[in-house]
């Protein structure tokens, strides 16, 4: 088998491979260990045949470094006679070479976190909200957003709960399901849409430092036109889905009712 050239970004020289090849190395049992050692992979890939091209990037780095400061002559005895004056003060002027600590398991930013969802929470499931201003209400789960929060709606007509984000942790998933495959959710319903709007004035002021800290926060929250629009659209489709499902009228009064624990009921022994 002809050795395949390694795909190193070496300046403009990119190795053209005819087809995407299967990786030669693989992890053992989802651990960090690889099947082949570095030496063995070197052999298998026949990397000894690949000529190393000196990266021109190094030169440009040197140039950039050189341009960063100006050499100036100074007077006085016994002090070297010249100084490097930085054009732009670098963020850090290390006296020692910082040792690079190898990040075996680099920190994952929030965006990259794995979003999990409980297995009994599927779109169309009826949820019981356990906290917040809508606690006790039975709402319909529409989908899980990218942040991991659940997008729910009452429907607002039935129990006053609007299109809203809710955390999985504050929710009981019931077995009751509504078929929402025909319910088309507007594209713009995402985390940014639901993000709390801080008043622009205040945020600018706090950033600037000089603020009228006694300035009243702006007027009470007013529902935007697009929210009304989306709520109406989703609710209409959802009410249709509820009507179409087997237990239509019962389901409606179910979603209107509030959940509570009655005497003698033990939540850990109950099936939801």
């Amino acid at each position, binding site marked *: 088998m002809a050795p395949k050239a390694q795909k190193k970004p070496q300046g403009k020289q990119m190795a053209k491979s005819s087809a995407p090849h299967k990786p030669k190395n693989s992890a053992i049992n989802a651990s960090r260990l690889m099947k082949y050692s570095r030496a063995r992979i070197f052999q298998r890939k026949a990397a000894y045949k690949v000529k190393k091209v000196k990266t021109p990037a190094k030169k440009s780095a040197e140039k950039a470094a050189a341009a960063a400061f100006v050499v100036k002559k100074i007077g006085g005895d016994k002090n070297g006679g010249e100084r490097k004056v930085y054009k732009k003060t670098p963020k850090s002027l290390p006296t020692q070479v910082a040792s690079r600590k190898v990040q075996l398991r680099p920190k994952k930013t929030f965006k990259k976190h794995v979003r999990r969802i409980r297995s009994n929470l599927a779109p169309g499931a009826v949820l019981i909200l356990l906290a917040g201003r809508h606690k006790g209400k039975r709402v319909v789960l529409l989908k899980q957003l990218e942040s991991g929060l659940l997008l729910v709606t009452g429907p607002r007509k039935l129990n006053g709960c609007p299109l809203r984000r809710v955390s999985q942790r504050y929710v009981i998933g019931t*077995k*009751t399901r509504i078929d929402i495959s025909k319910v088309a959710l507007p594209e713009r319903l995402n985390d940014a849409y639901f993000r709390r709007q801080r008043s622009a004035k205040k945020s600018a002021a706090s950033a600037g430092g000089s603020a009228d800290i006694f300035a009243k926060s702006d007027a009470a929250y007013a529902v935007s036109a697009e929210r009304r629009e989306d709520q109406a659209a989703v609710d209409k489709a959802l009410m249709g889905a509820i009507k179409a499902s087997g237990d239509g009228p*019962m389901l409606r*009064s*179910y979603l209107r009712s509030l959940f509570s624990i009655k005497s003698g009921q033990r939540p850990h022994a109950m099936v*939801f």
Partner: protein
Amino acid sequence: MGKLDKFVEVGRVAFIANGKDSGKVCAIAEIIDQNRVLIDGPCSGVRRQVCDMKRLHLTRFCIDLPHSARTAVVRRKWTAAKLDEKWKETSWAKKLEARRLRTNMSDFDRFKLARAKQIRNSIIALAAGKIRKEAKAKPNALRFRKPNKKRHIKKE
């Protein structure tokens, strides 16, 4: 304490009350000693095994089994005696089934049950109200008194 009519004997149908296979019925295939028996329930999914008498609740059914009958024989006698249907018809089995349904009710089921009860109770309350009204209209009616209770009627 009822009649002592349920004996531990070969062929006695018993209900397994706890442990593995709890809730199932089986037949006693052999008596080992004071405390243990060999049970077998091929038609109810109980493997042939030794069982402690403490786990078993005896039913009133008994099938005609030769002692140490093997599983195939037990199965044959069981199906011939139609024990599955007989067991299901007993109020014991019905109560178990009702309990099972009740514990497996979902939140929506519980809501529907509560709503059904409410409707039923309102119908009853309405009907009772009507009867009460009619009874008030009749002056010398029994009026919710015990029928045989002696009434002291004042002599004018």
